[in-house]
Every structure is written in structure tokens, then in C-alpha cells.
């Protein structure tokens, strides 16, 4: 969510009830502009809030040149003093999905993570259950990376790939129409693409080399793990991921205003297959 859009978040993400509170709006909007200035960011965004047991984390990011690959993340406990979020480590990415406890709010905290003997998500085979250490700062970094890669969304046409490969924000983006907003293929994963470029390109009839380089949302399984709701008299579309409860994407139709924000406890909901109706 753009730093300037924070002030009107009640009208956008408020449809799903959880917003940035009045005081946080003022604090974050100003501190993010300062952050942008200090880091020479071309644009700065509020990423979201992860609720901890003792304290909450605020996460923000900005980019200097490339709007997709060049994101630099910052985190804060109070919304004023921002610290650089480290790059996620291999260990962190491995252990974060295995953590069952909620975050505490202390970045220096080191927790023990139990790996069961027959854990399938790790590559190596273990002879016995293992306990490994994980620093909360690394956990936060991995969590942000994982959520970004699974649930960050941009409407089609917002990210524009220049012939030199750099991705910029498309200033000519005029917004989706109500008809386009009903289709999952109008929304793209805001992450480096995982499919081959021609796969993503050729799934559309009206393909465009500069815009269809990202993975569309309709490749996600199971079907129904994304929720689209067009509300307020076809003026806004909201997307929600069932896998990451708390992540909300909004886009005011026919305008370039869009963004996503995550306000949640940082737990992936893996019960989605049970939650969906089997014969819907």
C-alpha cells in the first residue's frame, strides 16, 4: 500500500474490517516519507503489520530502480525507527514454516524449532528429530519473503517491463474495468515469475510482452484459494488469500489506485482444502 494511501485505508481495506489505526496512519505516513528520502527510494510502500504476542512489527519497503526485483524491506517496532530487514537465510526459510508459536515482538529473541523425524518439507532425511535455533529477525525476514512470493498481488498492467529488462510502474495504467476485475487472470503475482515467459504470455489472447511477464493468480491451487469481491457499487475490488488470512489487496476500479497490506499473525493457514466446499 502506497504511503499516501494509508490515510484513506478505511474506505479500501476497511471492507474486511482490519485497518491501520488512526495514530498509526499519521505516524507511518510521515516516517515512511522520511525513510524514502533517506534511502533515495523512487517509491515507498507500507507492507503490513505482523501481530506479535508482546509487540507488533511494522514492515515497509521501497525500491530505487526496479519495482519488482529491487525491493528493500525495513521493519520497525513502533513505526518510527526503521531497521533494515536482513535477507532471508536458507535456514530461516526452512524453519519458518515449521514454527507453530506466534512471534513475540523482540527481534533478538532466539527460539528453538523442532523438526520432526519424518518431516517432508526439508530435503535431507533425518535419523532423529532435531531442534534448531532461529532468530526472530530471520524468521520475520523469511516470513515477509514467503508472504510476498505467495500472496503479493498487482493488477495486470501496473508493472511494465522496459526493453532493457527493468520493471517500472506504468504511469499510463488506467485501472481495470468491472468486467476484467471478475477474472483471476487480471491479477498477477507481484514476484519474480516462476513460469517460463512464453507460458505466461500465451495464456492470454491479448498478450503484451511488456505486461504479461508475471504469473497470473489463476495458476494457484486449489481453485478457490483466492477470494474476489467487488464491492461498494462496482467501485472497488478486493482480493483475499485463504492461505494468508489477513492479506488484503484492493484496487479502485478505473483508477490507478491499488495496493495490498498484510495485517495478521504471520501464520499460514494450511487448512484451506477443508474450508472449501468440495462440490462448489
Amino acid at each position: 500500500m502506497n504511503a499516501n494511501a494509508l490515510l484513506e485505508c478505511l474506505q479500501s481495506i476497511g471492507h474486511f474490517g482490519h485497518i491501520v489505526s488512526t495514530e498509526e496512519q499519521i505516524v507511518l505516513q510521515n516516517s515512511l516519507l522520511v525513510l524514502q528520502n533517506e534511502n533515495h527510494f523512487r517509491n515507498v510502500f507500507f507492507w503490513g503489520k505482523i501481530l506479535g504476542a508482546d509487540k507488533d512489527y511494522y514492515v515497509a519497503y521501497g525500491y530505487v530502480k526496479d519495482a519488482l526485483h529491487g525491493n528493500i524491506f525495513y521493519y520497525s517496532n513502533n513505526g518510527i525507527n526503521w531497521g533494515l530487514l536482513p535477507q532471508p537465510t536458507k535456514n530461516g526459510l526452512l524453519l519458518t514454516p515449521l514454527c507453530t508459536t506466534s512471534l513475540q515482538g523482540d527481534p533478538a529473541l532466539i527460539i528453538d524449532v523442532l523438526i520432526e523425524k519424518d518431516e517432508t518439507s526439508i530435503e535431507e532425511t533425518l535419523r532423529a528429530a532435531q531442534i534448531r535455533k532461529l532468530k526472530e529477525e530471520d524468521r520475520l525476514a523469511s516470513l515477509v519473503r514467503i508472504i510476498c512470493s505467495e500472496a503479493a498481488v498487482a493488477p495486470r498492467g501496473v508493472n511494465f517491463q522496459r526493453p532493457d529488462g527493468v520493471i517500472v510502474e506504468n504511469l499510463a495504467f488506467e485501472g481495470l474495468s468491472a468486467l476484467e476485475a471478475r477474472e483471476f487472470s487480471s491479477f498477477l503475482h507481484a514476484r519474480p515469475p516462476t513460469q517460463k515467459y512464453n507460458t505466461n504470455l500465451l495464456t492470454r489472447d491479448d498478450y503484451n510482452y511488456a505486461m504479461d511477464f508475471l504469473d497470473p493468480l489463476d495458476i494457484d491451487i486449489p481453485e478457490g484459494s483466492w477470494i474476489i469481491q467487488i464491492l461498494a457499487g462496482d467501485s472497488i475490488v478486493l482480493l483475499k488469500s485463504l492461505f494468508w488470512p489477513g492479506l488484503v489487496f484492493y484496487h479502485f476500479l478505473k483508477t490507478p489506485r491499488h495496493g495490498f497490506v498484510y495485517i495478521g499473525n504471520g501464520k499460514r493457514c494450511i487448512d484451506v482444502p477443508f474450508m472449501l466446499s468440495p462440490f462448489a
Partner: protein
Amino acid sequence: MLFGYSVTQNAGEAAEELPNNEAEFFNAKTFLQTASGNTGDNLYDHLTEVLNRILAERPENVIDFFEEYSRKVKERRYRPLTDRLEDCYITPAAFELASHMLRALRPLPAPAPSTLDPEDLELADMSRNNLLEMLFYLEQAGLGLPRPEMVFVMLSMRQLVAAKPIASIRFWGKVLGTFQNYLVLEAELKEEEYVRRNEEFAEQTAQLPSAPMSQLDEALAHLSLAGEGATSKVPRALPAEPQIHFLPPAEAPMEPSGVGLNKKAYFVCPGIGEPWTELPDVSPQQIRVARQIHKAFSGRLDTPIQTHPEFPGQERHLLRAQIARISSATLVAPLGFYTFGAEELGEGAEEEEEEAAGGEPKTVYSPNPHYQPPALKDLLDSSMSFWVHTAPYILPQGRTSWWNPGPDLEGAGDEEDEGEQLGEEEQEEEPKATRVEPESGPPLLTPLSEDASLETTNPWTVRPTASVLDMFSLAVVRSNLWPGGHALATPTSGFYNVYIGDGLKYMQTNFTPLPLPAVQQEYPVGPEVLEVLDPSGQEEEQWRIDHLPKPKPQLGEGGEEAEPEQEEEEEDEEEDDED
């Protein structure tokens, strides 16, 4: 030449004045103005239009997305300027929304003239239902719905109060679904309405068992007759149909309207302009199954719920069950706001009948007129001893008051002793008649500090809403077991309880569906139906040798002994061949 036309039309003239600017310009312009064979457009006009637009709009860094810009200009050319089929000034959905809103904004119709004193009409008190004031506080806590939605809820509350027999009403929250969401209102109906409903319910249940059973019997009789007619010639008569001796365990009865979990009625509505639907009362069975399943709401009340422990009902019943569970867990108030001061006059005689414990725990409380809000420091205390539960605990049985499933199924409190004596007499016949340990839960207005924590998760988190403007800070409590359940203490109007979430309980370790029950035995498994391996020839031979009669003490002739062996071996071989 690469191009399909000749640049120089008159080679002789061009050769005379070689650097002829005008001719070059003319040639280039002609080329650019060549109409496309496909669309009839030409590049010259397009470039003019693009440049014209760029100069008029002056976008920044236009070179980065020039292609896009050019495409947009081209696209616009094919868009009709006016839709000649229908004049569409705003989108139909926006128009619909606006007209719904206007309808809700209309003043209420004048009440029908009645002889009653206006004070006796007893319209519900709306003084605590200023949702815009509530929104002001909620926004500080990081919650909130769009303002039009809040205004709509407020307006429709006003209409509901006038149209239905409602004694008190409040905004309960919002349950998010996949297709639509539910706005939820919680209302307490008037006493006479509850009485009327219970009488209606009693009439219905009295009629129910007779009619459908007789129909079923009739149908069965027809079936069997038809079957006999067709198969009477078959020599063997069919054996008697097996009787089912299994009796399902007695089901705890529903709490009557106005008692326990059905004390409040709930109204839901999917969004602005939609009508409000009242949810049905909840049964203990629905509560118990709702605990075992994990299902997202779709937003349509008629959706069937297909889950493994079969849920008795549709989505409206599941929604009602979840609302009951959420209310029971997350309705909290600051300590001292309510007291048990009032007498329990509200409970009627017919309610007492159902209660096994005979009104032992107090179920009625009233606002404390001498309420002093606790200090913010106390409210923010993480031990949570300054917040109390205001909704009754739901027993594992699925009711708030325990129902005795003992020998007499109508187990009323007064008859309990008799039932027990009966049970003792008949103990040999019915082992089920042993006394069941009554379930009990914490009483009302118990501090939250008594709550059990779920493994390592604290059930509650309390935060101040402001850290900078701390003199205006409020205390907000959020439930970690029911993400989305919030309570907020305000300096003026006491407190607010709101739930905004997807209606699912938090599970630290993820949801595990109930395993399927073991496959039932069709018939007793004995040696005659067990499948065993046939013995091999060698084994049979061994067995025969082992079981041979003891050789007689006198020596017989070898020839006689050898003969049966050979015979048997031949038989074995035959058997093997058959296999």
C-alpha cells in the same frame, strides 16, 4: 526497393535539383500517410494524435512506456463516443447502491395509531447504538468498516426496532465469507415474543413424530406387498428382515428461545440494501459438530455444509452455531460494569423446567449504576483480571445449562432423584442408567485471568490504542483464540464488543479432521467364513502320516501299507489339478 512504391516519381526533375527539401518532405509525408491495408489508419495521423496527447497531458518519463501510451491512443479511437443503445451515466451497480441507500435514509413510516401510551410501546433503547461514535473508537484500535456501511447498519437497526418485537439491539460484527460477507446484529426479543415462539415450537414437536412415521409405514407396507406378489412363486420364502437394535444415544434438547444460547436472536445481511434475515435457534448438536469441523463461510445462507461429522443444517445453522461459540468466548466487559444485583424475575416457569441444575448459576446481570471505569493501567494489565466474561460458558454437551441424559429422558431437576432410584432398580437391564457426572463451567462474570491458555498461545492480548497520544489512549483486548474478536473500553460509554473475522477458531496445530469410524461388522467372523490358505500336498501328506493309526504290534505285509499311500497321493494330485 524495399517499399512498395517508388520514392521518386519523376527521376528527371529530381536529378536537376538534388537536395530538394520540399520533395523529400513531401515523399516522407506521403509514405507516413499511406493507409494501412487492414484498418485504414495511417501512421501520420496516429503520431500526430499521440504527440498531441503527450504534449497536452505532459506525463513524466513518457519514454519508459511510450508503446503503452501509443496503444491506449489507438484503443481510444475505436471506442464509441456515445453508447447509442442505452444512456448509461453511472454503472448500474453504483446506481443500485445509491437507491438502496436513499431508501434506507427515508424517514420511518408513522406508527399505526394505537391507544397505548407511547411509553408503553417500549421501543428498544438506541442510545448506545451510535455506530459512528463506535467507529471513531474502533478506528483507533485498528478496526472499522467503511462509513456508508456503518450508517446503513444504523439506519436498518432503526427500521428493525420499529418492525420487530425487539427489546434491545446492538451491532455484533461482521463475518467474512468467500462470495459475500455477513453483517450481524444481536437482538434481545421481547418476553412475550419468546413465549409465543416456545409455544409454537412445542406445538410443532408434538405434531411431528406422528405424521411422517405413518406415511413411512404406509410406504413400507406397499413395498413389502409388491415384493411378495412378485416373489411368491419362488420356492424359498425370504428370511425375515433384520431388525435394527441400535438406539442412538439420546440427544440433548435444544434450549428454548430466550434461554442460554438462544437468549439472543441474530439478524444477518450481506451488504448495503439487502434485507435482514433472522437466523434460526441453535441446537446442542449443531454446536458439537461445529467444534469438529473447519469450514469457511460462503456468504449464502442456503449453502449445504458437506463435512465428515455430518453437520445438521445449512450454512445459516453453522453461522448461528459459530456466532454462539464466538459470543460465548469473546464477549467481555470491564470489571464492575455489570453486577448480579437484579433479582431473577425474568425467568419463567417453563424455563426452569428445562434446567437440570434448577437455576443454580446466575444467568441474569444488570448494568452497575455505580460503575467507575477502572484505570487504564489496570485495564492494560496483562493478567487480564480487570476484564470479565459476560456470556455463559458452553458446556461440552453444547448447552449452557447441563441436561441430564440419565434414565428418564425428560430429566427435570425435581425428578432427578426418582430417576436415579429407577436406574438402580433396573441396573441389570440397562447399564446406561448409571449417574452421569454433570458438566460444569465457570460462572458468569469470571475474570479472563481464569481462562485456560492454548498450549503456548495466550488467549488474550491487550494493547493501548495510542503510544504517542497516550493521554487519550484506550484499552483494546483482542482474542487470540477467535482472531477478530475485540473488546474496547471507552471513557464515556463503557465498552464495545465487536467481532470482525472469518468465523473460524485459531488452531495452533492445524485442523485434523475426525477419523472415519471403524467399518462395521456385517456378520460374526468365525472359522466357517475365514479365508485360509489351502494346505499343499506335502502338508496333507504329513498330516495323514501324523494321524495314521498306530502300527499294530504284529508285523504286517509291506504291500498293504504301501497301497493306500499311493491312492492318497493320486487324490492329492487330482486336487492340485483342480486348483
